[in-house]
């Protein structure tokens, strides 16, 4: 865990990434709070907070007494969310760095095209 950021947010992001990658398909059961806490070596209350964040967003749903599951449509919604954030989270810092190195937009675009062809 990254010590500088709230752990419950990292727990939520971690589960989101697994849903995005298809490791947790829609309808699949998510590890229990206790399993998450033991695996990540964190306080169970913190794990619960992270999972509840996803329940509130509708990414996960609870079935009383059984466990937590990935909601239908969660994958596509997360994908859309991450895509809309991509510019802010990844392109903006890239452009900033490119500027400080004196790279032109054309040069950066060429590099991106090359990288994406790999």
């Amino acid at each position, binding site marked *: *865990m990254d010590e500088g950021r709230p752990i419950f947010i990292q727990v939520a992001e971690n589960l989101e990434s697994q849903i995005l990658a298809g490791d947790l398909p829609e309808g699949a059961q998510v590890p229990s709070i206790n399993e998450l806490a033991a695996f990540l070596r964190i306080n169970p209350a*913190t794990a619960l907070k992270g999972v509840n964040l996803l329940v509130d967003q509708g990414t996960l749903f609870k079935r009383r007494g059984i466990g937590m599951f990935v909601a239908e449509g969660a994958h596509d919604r997360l994908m859309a969310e991450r895509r809309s954030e991509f510019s802010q989270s990844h392109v903006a810092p890239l452009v900033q760095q490119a500027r400080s190195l004196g790279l032109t937009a054309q040069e950066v675009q060429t590099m991106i095209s090359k990288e994406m062809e790999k």
Partner: protein
Amino acid sequence: MNAVVEVAGLTKKYGAVRAVDDVTFSLEEGGIHGLLGRNGAGKTTLMSLLTAQEFATAGDIRVFGESPVENASVLGRVCFIKESQVYPDAFKGKHVLRSAAWFFPHWDGDYAAKLVELFNAPLDRPMKKLSRGQRSAIGVIVGLASRAELTFLDEPYAGLDAVARRRFYDELLADYTEHPRTIVLSTHLIDEAADLLERVLVIHEGKLVMDADADELRGSVTTLVGRASDVESFAAGRDVLDRSTIGGIASVTIAGLNDNDKAAAASAGLEASSVSLQDLIVRRTGAISEGEAA
């Protein structure tokens, strides 16, 4: 939820020294909490007061709603593992465990036996002949297997190596999950224990200087690095915990930045990084006091 510990205006003086100075807080039932602070900050004294091993100079203590002083019905529900525990001369590990079984109503002998294996604790040698780590191991076993409703662990792993400490964290977490209770862990190995803690109480020179949710603290403080003039103009009027300058580059650590502030800092060309719980506490308690400076 019920408060298992309620403390108001608690003060303990040793001569002119205020080891605990006007401390007020309460702990709800359940959870693993950290009592953090530098050596000599007053952590052990505070826990000794809560378990009636010391008597308060002033203030009020309620444990399970009652004063703990000479109160067997309260103290039977509380376990306090001290780093500096003194045992009777001939006492061996097995005697310690036997007395614990007698003293703690929820004692789990099978679990204790499992922990003895796990920590490789010697039971047949006098406690005073054991190494620091071995004595700590026995303390940890008593602290966990007692399953007391309120458990204080004061630097429980002094002298334990990294492997044994990791085992202790894993056992603490697993057993707490199965048998939820209130655990107060005092430690200066903040980085190691930080992820286990739900709430953090920081004590400095006898005073309670921080009482907050551990996850709220994480990310509440940011270090900004950039051109000195940019840094200074951004930091003006904010809660600056720490600053340093090298050449034309300055670094400040600021509390209470929201997302807008962080975006503003980024567009001002400042590089931001979050501060870990340990760093945050070091910065809050590391200031040189008047006493030290004199």
